[in-house]
C-alpha cells in the first residue's frame, strides 16, 4: 500500500500542472497516527502532502458533488463504486472526473490496534508490506496487517477500482468464496425478541452526533431528514425509540446503494457497528435482486426500477 504514495503525488502534480484537472481529491496524513483524512489540492506545489497507506478509510466521494470544475480523484474499490453510484444518481458526470485507480489491500481498524496495545498512547505507526509497527513512548509492537483489517475490508471482494482512467499499480487478486454475511445470518436466526435486544444494545451508546451520516458518501441531501424541524420526522433525543428510528431510516436510505466502504463505522466516536443495519439490506438486495451496488454504469438500482417479476410475495 504505502509504496504507491510517491506515484500518487507525481501523478497529481502532473494532472494539476497540465490543467487536466483543476482540483485533486486524495488523502493526507492525519495529525494523529492512523487518522488520515481527505484533502483537496489545487496548487501543484502542494501535491507533496498527498499520502496513501492503510489508514485511508474515509470515502472521498463526499467531496465530488455540487462542483463545476474538473476533478481528479483517487479511487480504490469502494471509492470507485461510490463514484459509479454518484454517476447513476446524477450527482456528478463521468466526464467531470479523472479517476486515478489504486489497488487496495484493505484498511486497518484503528480501534483494534488501540485494543491490542491496551489503550496506551500511540505516537507513530509505520507500515512495511504485510506488517506494521506501532510505537509509543515506552513500547514498540509489530503486527500483521491481515489480523487488523477493518471488518468491512476483511469481507471485501472489490479491492480494485471498478472504473478508472488510469491505474497506479497492478490490480490485486480478488478473494474468492468470501462469506460476507455470517454475522447477519446469526442475527436472522434469532427470535424477534432476541433481535430487538441485540439491536437495542448495539445502538445504546449512540450520542446522535450524526458522524456516520456525515462520513457516508450516499448522504448528500441538501437537508437531511434528521435536521428538519417542519415537519420533524424523528425525535432528537437519545431515547431508545428516537435513536432506533434514526438508525433504521439512515440505513434504509442506503438500501441498494451501500458499497460497504465502512466509513460510518470508522468515524463513530463510540464504536457502534452500524454496518449491521446496512449489511442486512445489502444481503437482501443480493438475494432478491442479485444486485451489488456500484458495479455498473448501465444498470439501474433495484429500488428505482420496476419489473413485473420483482420479488413481491409480502404484498397481499
Amino acid at each position, binding site marked *: 500500500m504505502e509504496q504507491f504514495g510517491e506515484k500518487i503525488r507525481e501523478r497529481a502534480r502532473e494532472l494539476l500542472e497540465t490543467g487536466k484537472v483543476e482540483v485533486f481529491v486524495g488523502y493526507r496524513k492525519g495529525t494523529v497516527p492512523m487518522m488520515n483524512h481527505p484533502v483537496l489540492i489545487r496548487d501543484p506545489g502542494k501535491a507533496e502532502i498527498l499520502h496513501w497507506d492503510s489508514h485511508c478509510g474515509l470515502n472521498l466521494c463526499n467531496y465530488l458533488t455540487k462542483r463545476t470544475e474538473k476533478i481528479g480523484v483517487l479511487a480504490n474499490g469502494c471509492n470507485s463504486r461510490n463514484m459509479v453510484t454518484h454517476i447513476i444518481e446524477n450527482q456528478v458526470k463521468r466526464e467531470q472526473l479523472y479517476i486515478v485507480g489504486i489497488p487496495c489491500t484493505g484498511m486497518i481498524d484503528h480501534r483494534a490496534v488501540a485494543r491490542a496495545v491496551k489503550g496506551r498512547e500511540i505516537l507513530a505507526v509505520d507500515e512495511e508490506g504485510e506488517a506494521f509497527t506501532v510505537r509509543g513512548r515506552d513500547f514498540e509492537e509489530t503486527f500483521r496487517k491481515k489480523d487488523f483489517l477493518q471488518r468491512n475490508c476483511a469481507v471485501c471482494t472489490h479491492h480494485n477500482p471498478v472504473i478508472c482512467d488510469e491505474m497506479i499499480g497492478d490490480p490485486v487478486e480478488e478473494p474468492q468464496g468470501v462469506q460476507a454475511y455470517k454475522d447477519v445470518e446469526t442475527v436472522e436466526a434469532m427470535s*424477534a*425478541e432476541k433481535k*430487538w435486544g441485540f439491536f437495542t444494545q448495539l445502538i445504546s451508546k449512540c450520542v446522535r452526533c450524526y458522524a456516520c451520516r456525515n462520513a457516508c458518501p450516499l448522504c448528500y441531501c441538501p437537508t437531511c431528514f434528521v435536521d428538519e424541524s417542519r415537519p420533524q420526522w424523528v425525535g432528537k433525543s437519545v431515547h431508545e*425509540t428516537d435513536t432506533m428510528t434514526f438508525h*433504521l431510516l439512515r440505513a434504509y436510505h442506503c438500501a441498494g446503494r451501500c458499497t460497504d466502504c465502512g466509513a460510518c463505522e470508522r468515524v463513530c466516536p463510540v464504536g457502534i457497528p452500524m454496518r449491521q443495519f446496512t449489511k442486512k439490506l445489502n444481503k437482501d438486495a443480493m438475494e432478491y435482486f442479485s444486485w451489488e451496488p456500484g458495479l455498473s454504469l448501465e444498470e439501474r438500482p433495484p429500488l428505482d426500477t420496476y419489473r413485473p417479476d420483482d420479488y413481491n410475495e409480502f404484498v*397481499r
Partner: protein
Amino acid sequence: MLKGLVEHVGIEPGRLHFSWISSAESTKFVEVAQEVAKAVKELGPAERLVKRRAEVG
C-alpha cells in the same frame, strides 16, 4: 427490503403489512383490514419502537 430490515431489528413479523388495493376493490379492502387487525391483535400492544409520555404523579 423495508419489511426485511424492520423485522431484522426485532419488530414482530405480523405487525407490518403491505397491500395493494384499488379504489374499486372494496371487498379486498375489508378482507385485508380484518386480517391485519386480527394479526395485530394476536401480537398484543406494541412495546418496541414506542415512546411513552412521562408518567407523572
